[in-house]
């Protein structure tokens, strides 16, 4: 059963935002705009869903944006070397898994706080991305035929359905499968989870790897969409991911929240950005608005926790 309360501020916020926007911003009501918003939100959804795994497991991942860039560059370099795109996708996912494992092993094996461990991998991943690419963008257009599904504007980008599908699948895994239940238990209380025979260490590492793979998927989405692999992609995405997750009811203290909530949070942020742009609100104000949104999101979770 879907209960509104599991998704933090996202449902109320989404409802309010949509109602106000539909009623007062004519440009918002067009099919083109709906497509634009959803396509933009699909990127945010993927990273937020990835972040929700790490957060629910009771950790934090600051390397999100760097892994986006690294996966993009790994994809670009492999394609440029003349290999089949399938290999390029594998290379991107593989290198992201390596970074995710490294974060996990540092945080769990060496007991470096996740904040510090992923601050380190954030630097490492960005550095490797810059190194591999020589600091330049890699055009992949000549290697992949332009697909209107990704860049065109008449059709509805495939990315939307892929992202929504992935969000639901990720939600199912976390809420319904054994691995998911164990990850949540680990995040709720490491000690009691361990006492009950749950492999808390491996599950924590796995959550970092899952998070990194989601970041890699985001990097691939961006790269295919813009037909350019760049080491500068993903700046500040870690904050974006955490913002979306918190708005969507994912608690920073672990154990609470759902990937679908995080995805809804990402959609909220995308709608706010879009509406403010349509209303010609300058960038400075947009930043302030998102800041307030985060506070509202957090207060929502806090109030619900106290009510329990």
């Amino acid at each position, binding site marked *: 059963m*879907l*209960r*509104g*309360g*599991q*998704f933090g501020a*996202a*449902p*109320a916020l*989404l*409802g*309010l*935002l*949509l*109602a106000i*926007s*539909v009623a007062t911003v004519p*440009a918002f*009501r*067009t*099919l*083109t*705009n*709906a*497509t*634009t*918003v959803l*396509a*933009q939100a699909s*990127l945010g959804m993927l990273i937020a869903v990835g972040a929700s795994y790490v957060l629910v497991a009771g950790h934090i991942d600051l390397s999100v944006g760097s892994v986006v860039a690294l996966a993009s560059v790994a994809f670009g370099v492999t394609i440029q070397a003349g290999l089949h795109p399938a290999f390029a996708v594998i290379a991107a996912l593989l290198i992201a898994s390596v970074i995710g494992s490294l974060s996990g092993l540092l945080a769990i094996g060496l007991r470096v706080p996740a904040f510090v461990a992923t601050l380190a991998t954030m630097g490492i991943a960005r550095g490797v991305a810059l190194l591999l690419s020589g600091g330049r*963008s890699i*055009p992949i*257009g*000549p290697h992949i035929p*332009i697909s209107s599904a990704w*860049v065109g*504007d008449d059709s509805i980008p495939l990315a939307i359905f892929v992202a929504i599908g992935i969000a639901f699948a990720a939600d199912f895994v976390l809420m319904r499968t054994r691995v998911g239940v164990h990850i949540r238990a680990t995040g709720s209380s490491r000690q009691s989870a361990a006492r009950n025979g749950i492999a808390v260490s491996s599950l924590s590492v796995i959550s970092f790897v899952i998070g990194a793979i989601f970041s890699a998927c985001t990097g691939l989405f*961006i790269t295919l*969409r*813009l*037909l*350019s692999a*760049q080491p*500068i*992609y993903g*700046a*500040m995405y870690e904050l974006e991911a955490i913002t979306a997750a918190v708005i969507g009811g994912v608690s920073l203290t672990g154990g609470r929240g759902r990937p679908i909530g995080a995805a*809804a949070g990402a959609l909220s942020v995308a709608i706010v*950005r*879009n509406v403010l*742009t*349509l209303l*010609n609100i*300058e*960038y*400075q104000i947009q*930043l302030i608005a998102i800041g307030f949104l985060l506070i509202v999101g957090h207060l929502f979770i806090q109030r619900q926790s106290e009510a329990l």
Partner: protein
Amino acid sequence: MKYHNIPFCWAIMAGALWLGACQRESAPPAPTPTPKPQREVAFVLKTINNPFFVEMRAGALAEASRHPDIKLSIHATATESAVVEQVQLVESLLGKPVAAVCLTPNDSTVAVGLVAKANAQRIPVVIVDTRLNAQEVARQGAKPATFIGSDNVTGGEMAAKLLAQAIKQRGEVALLEGVAGQETAISRRDGFLRGIRKFPDIKVVAQQPANWERDQAYNVMRAILTAHPRLLGAFASNDEMAIGAARAAADMKRDIEIVGFDYTPDGAAAIQTGDLTGSIAQDPKSMGALAVKSAVAAINGQSLPPEQPVAVVAHSSTN
């Protein structure tokens, strides 16, 4: 119904409303009867934390106030490297749709896709400051309304004149270039070489790239100064490199005249202290104004030249 279900239902209802509204809009094929009093020109700046773009914004707003039928909106991203964010921003504007876009591309390749997309919607795009990647433009068949950028060739020539006057029109000089192959680097270099040819007693004895960077220019200039003990002056293709070169000269106790480009705050300060001889300034205010003017012309169906260079200004300790 539990309390928790209420917001969730809200969301679903509002979502349905959104989609319902969308369908209504898309059902009749396009003829919008409501006449639009003002047409919107959207100006997308790279950032708003760089004085260069703050000036450009001011120029654009000033020009827009002279066109009562035009509404100018200003947009920006957090940093000059926010490539994805800029794409999303422009897509939102195209979906609105605005009547025209002035765009300072954060990435000269990726922006080509945006121009192509705008072309399909018949929305003119004026490219400002950063030239689009020509290869990609040809590949995608994109057609920007016009390009507005600094006249770097003339700027290079002015730098040559400034330097020649400072060294009394004779002697050996060096040239520090930007990133090899980059359009701006090539234009400034070619302009300088053309300008310096007018002074037959001046000889360019060294010519090397230092990639726009202060520390690289320092190292390159040290090597050049060692190799050419009679060097009198140098042109560095931006102020960062000029300052690096000036440091190298100071560390090696050599007194040479150095002219930079961009007239950045650091560059202006270095001219004040005498570390630099002069610098060539771009004119972002005029670029912003010309961009809006061109956008208005494009909306009215006037054809524009493919490139509109904006004049640059020489600054030195004497003026």
